[in-house]
């Protein structure tokens, strides 16, 4: 009789209901699905942005606009010779003229000949570091040899793109975190409503000697059912939706996902539903214990 059990056996639904409130599993499901999708976006975009930054860092293209093909070729040769002597230059690659023409064709259409339109010569340069000082030295060296050549660092035009991808990635991660917190808030609100609806029951249980922990367990069971149902439903929805998106945009996603962590990303995304369950359960448990502690 003095045994201090923490669980009232669930012989019958002591609270007279097996559900907390009608809407909660649906809300949790939606939040879980959105959190998983946001997490997926974060896991694809952030590494992709990092990869892109790595690719563009320390790269520049030198452009020589010179209508006379002979002079242009001489300029290219001069620059190649000159750059080979610069200590901070790692690699130099001049784009063959046919390749430049092919590039131009994409924009200007086929059938252009070298003589019709003077195409610029392009030289790709890799330098050891991508800081402004190095780029300035490169620029000075190039101008000293061929004054009309222009140095275009890749970071100048791809940098903002990489930064935006990275920012969107972090925003998506923050959204995932907020959605998980929202799921917890929903669980807390639902359990509070249940507590006030069940107040007479709680009084009886207390007066016949139930501890707060025992009473809280009864509500925990209700919360657990609803939160789990919602999280699983949301997870299934999110997985189906992602598979659909991946299938629809095979090429792009494959390209982006190369930078992402592959299996590790999938594990992170699949961690969202258990995280929703854990956070919601913990928050509602604290809410119940606190609310019970305020009763006489």
């Amino acid at each position, binding site marked *: *009789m*003095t*045994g*201090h*059990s923490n669980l*009232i*056996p669930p*012989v*019958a*639904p*002591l609270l*007279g209901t097996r559900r907390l409130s009608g809407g909660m599993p649906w809300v949790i499901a939606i939040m879980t699905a959105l959190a998983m999708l946001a997490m997926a976006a974060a896991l694809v975009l952030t590494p992709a942005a990092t990869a892109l930054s790595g690719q563009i860092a320390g790269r520049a293209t030198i452009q020589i606009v010179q209508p006379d093909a002979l002079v242009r070729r001489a300029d290219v040769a001069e620059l190649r010779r000159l750059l080979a002597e610069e200590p901070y230059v790692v690699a130099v690659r001049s784009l063959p003229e046919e390749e430049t023409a092919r590039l131009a064709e994409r924009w200007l259409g086929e059938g252009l000949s070298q003589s019709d339109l003077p195409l610029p010569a392009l030289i790709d340069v890799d330098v050891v570091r991508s800081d402004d000082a190095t780029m300035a030295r490169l620029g000075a060296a190039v101008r000293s040899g061929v004054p009309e050549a222009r140095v275009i660092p890749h970071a100048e035009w791809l940098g903002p793109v990489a930064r935006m991808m990275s920012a969107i990635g972090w925003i998506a991660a923050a959204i995932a975190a907020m959605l998980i917190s929202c799921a917890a808030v929903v669980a807390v609100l639902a359990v509070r409503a249940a507590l006030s609806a069940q107040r*007479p*029951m709680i*009084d*009886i*249980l*207390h*007066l*016949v*000697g*139930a*501890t*707060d922990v*025992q009473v809280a367990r009864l509500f925990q069971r209700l919360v657990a059912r609803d939160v789990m149902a919602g999280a699983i439903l949301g997870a299934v929805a999110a997985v189906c939706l992602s598979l659909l998106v991946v299938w629809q945009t095979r090429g792009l996603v494959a390209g982006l996902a190369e930078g992402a962590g592959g299996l590790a990303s999938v594990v992170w995304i699949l961690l969202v539903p258990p995280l929703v369950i854990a956070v919601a359960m913990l928050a509602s448990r604290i809410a119940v214990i606190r609310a019970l*502690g305020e009763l*006489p």
Partner: protein
Amino acid sequence: MASGRTSSGDIVRFDNVGLRYGAGTETLSDISFTLTRGGFYFLAGPSGAGKTSLLKLLYLALRPTRGVVTMFGEDLVTLPRNRLPGFRRRIGVVFQDFRLIPHLSAFDNVALPLRIAGVAERDLAAPVGEMLEWVGLGERMHARPVTLSGGEQQRVAIARAVVARPELLVADEPTGNVDPEMAVRLLQLFEGLNRMGTSVVVATHDLHLMNRVPGAQMMRLAKGRLADPTGALRYPPASRYTAAP
């Protein structure tokens, strides 16, 4: 034998207790009495006198707004909240409004205090069944409260109050809804429990009932004050069953 102020035979002691609901006047004022272990008490008084309020203090649904309440040898006013369940498990309560759990059967309602106290499922059937037999509801074990009459519900409430063999039984008008014959039977149940050592406090209007328990003490409340002209409630002689030889 002297009736000491803090005799070990005391189960409950009130000292100048006052109770106020909200901001109004005091519902109970200057209540002082001692209940001896094994005693049988009737609490009488007109409607609105504060009987239920006093019982609420006894079954720990309320704490007094002033004064000192000592129960089972401990000061209840300063008792931390997390120790209340342990105390409440030693007290059986018959509420004036029964307070059965509507979606549980009579059996499950009566089994509730045992389950809360951690009694194993296989050990429930015997005491619960016996208690329901005693109150004449052995046949209605699986009925829900709504399908029971007022008197039947009251008997389920009584069975629930006594099933865990509490040290203190507090009953608020426990015979208000039953016929005189059943009232006597229920009183016998209380007396039987009392003989096994349970202290009993029964609030009632029924003078007839009070006369049936020889040696029971009378507590009379009027307008929130306890009449104790002889001082016997405050400084009781040794109780009937623990009397010195």
